[in-house]
């Protein structure tokens, strides 16, 4: 009987240090996640908090975490006609959506060609496309400005959309190439054996299999373009043609003071479409990113 007891108690005693180690590991991991979350969310909290503070409180040297006095004045001021906030929103939506859509179509064709095509310059072309993404946007801006100037497209939405596409497409092509790499070669070849031409294989087989990739690419491009501030500042020269990031900066930043409360209120409203877009496709986006990553291996 005593032997039986010791046999039962021995296995119970052994896992204890391992369980302690596991608990310790979990705690350390949670602390790490909390620190990362703090750095990611603190600016968002500060943006929200400041957007409800009156002008004096928003600029005081000893800022408080929560507003001492709540005000909606910063939000109301966006729509009182002092600046064309509505135009900024409309311009941003049109240019970002158009750039994302056109870039997505071009990226799908380009990515498919680089992934499944069989032509001599495929590797150098892939590298060249990646190279354009490695260059700072400012470097590309000078030549692009001259091109658009000669085409009379400065201070136009079309010119801005072309500018956005110039940096969005290389990124999109590489993302889409990764997703197309995940489509098995045999599936594409089966469609060839079935008699379909390449463009129909892209439309009927490859694209339906990369829908998460398409959503991911479109979202990344949309966010990338939506947040861009350098191109509209350089390519648009009237306030009413500006988009949100550049328009807000020009409207709220003066020579002697910055209206932090107004800028934060505008930033909150600007972030909402991005958050909606992100949460709407969050699941397929994560799936899409995973598929792309595995395909590259």
């Amino acid at each position, binding site marked *: 009987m005593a032997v039986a007891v010791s046999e039962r108690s021995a296995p119970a005693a052994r896992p204890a240090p391992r369980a302690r180690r596991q608990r310790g590991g979990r705690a350390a991991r949670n602390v790490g996640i909390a620190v990362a979350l703090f750095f990611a969310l603190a600016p968002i909290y500060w943006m929200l908090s400041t957007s409800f503070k009156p002008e004096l409180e928003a600029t005081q040297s000893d800022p408080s975490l929560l507003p001492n006095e709540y005000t909606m004045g910063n939000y109301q001021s966006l729509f009182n006609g002092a600046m064309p906030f509505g135009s900024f929103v409309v311009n941003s939506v049109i240019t970002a959506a158009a750039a994302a859509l056109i870039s997505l179509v071009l990226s799908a064709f380009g990515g498919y060609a680089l992934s499944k095509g069989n032509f001599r310059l495929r590797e150098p072309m892939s590298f060249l496309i990646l190279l354009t993404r490695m260059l700072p946007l400012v470097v590309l801006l000078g030549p692009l400005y001259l091109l658009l100037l000669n085409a009379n497209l400065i201070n136009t939405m079309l010119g801005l959309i072309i500018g956005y596409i110039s940096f969005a497409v290389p990124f999109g092509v590489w993302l889409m190439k990764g997703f197309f790499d995940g489509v098995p070669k*045999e*599936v594409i*070849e*089966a469609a060839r054996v079935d*008699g379909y*031409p390449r463009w129909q294989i892209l439309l009927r087989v490859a694209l339906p299999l990369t829908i998460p990739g398409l959503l991911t690419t479109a979202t990344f491009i949309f966010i990338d373009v939506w947040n861009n501030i350098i191109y509209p500042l350089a390519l648009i020269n009237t306030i009413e043609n500006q988009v949100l990031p550049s328009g807000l900066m020009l409207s709220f930043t003066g020579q002697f003071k910055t209206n932090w409360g107004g800028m934060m209120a505008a930033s909150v409203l600007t972030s909402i479409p991005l958050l909606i877009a992100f949460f709407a496709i969050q699941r397929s986006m994560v799936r899409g990113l995973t598929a792309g990553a595995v395909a590259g291996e």
Partner: protein
Amino acid sequence: MAKISLRDVEKSYGSELVLRDCNLDIDDHEFVVLVGPSGSGKTTLLRIIAGLEPVSGGDVYFDDVCVNNIDVGDRDIAMVFQNYGLYPHKSVYENMAFGLRRRKISKSEIDERVRQAGELLGIGDLLRRRPKQLSGGQRQRVALGRAIVRDPSAFLLDEPLSNLDAHLRVQMRAEILKVHKTVTATAVYVTHDQVEALTMGDRIVVMRDGMIQQVGTPDHLYDYPANRFVAGFIGTPAMGFLRCSVRRSADGDTELVSPGVQIPLPRERAAAIPADVDTVEVGVRPERLYLDQTAARSGTLSGTVEMVEQLGSEYYVHVNIDDAVITARTSRDQRVEIEESVKLTTDGAYAHLFDVETGAAYA
């Protein structure tokens, strides 16, 4: 239905020549198996026939028409891929109907063909499912069904059973043969499994290093291998090889001898060895080696048992003879132990003789 001919087909990737001097005639309705080890070029040759790879040299003919410049979709072939190649986003029905839609076949005929193929392959009740909802064997049947409904001139099958377990493989082998008998189209089947090749092929094409080594019926390849490679590749367990001297006596008798080995050759076998050759590579099939020493067989081979494989109904006894290991297939009644000295007997009439340098058979 199509007769397929290859004339001096070559394929290179950059400077690397992966196929050369491939000449082959496949008759209408014939089931031909391309077999060889990994990297032998069998899949590349199949893809060239399909039109998925262009040739670097030579010509491919379908019914005496050169198809080098005809796209894969216009060659009227159907292909079954190693990993099935099913469309994951389409149902089983849509997978089979997809190729027919491209050919502008009426909806009613598509429906009839798909349902017929479904019944033939036992997947009639799975037509609404997606590929991910099917087992490996069911997916393989869908891939076969997709090929059958097309009613093509030729079926090309690239290691279609390699992803299935052993039991299912045997079952699907029979299914494929049944389907081939039903549709009677020309079939080219690639495998690295020589058992599959022997059991399925009307003729077998053995490949190695991008070259066709021998083409023949399963029996012909087994009994008359053209070279040492084919002899060693075809047959399970593999043929054993020994290097022996050719000892010719004044009265015209010939013996193969080496330490522990003495095999008298019948005159017609001995006559195949050129007069200036005094060393040959001797191959003996495991079923031609006997532990039963009472039988009247004049060839003897003495060695030490190195390993015994138990297969239930029989044993494979691996015997070391002067550092060469040969395998004998024995019955359950003839148990031997590892390290035991044994004497095997054989008949010189069944000894295969190969050139030591080139490996070519002395026929």
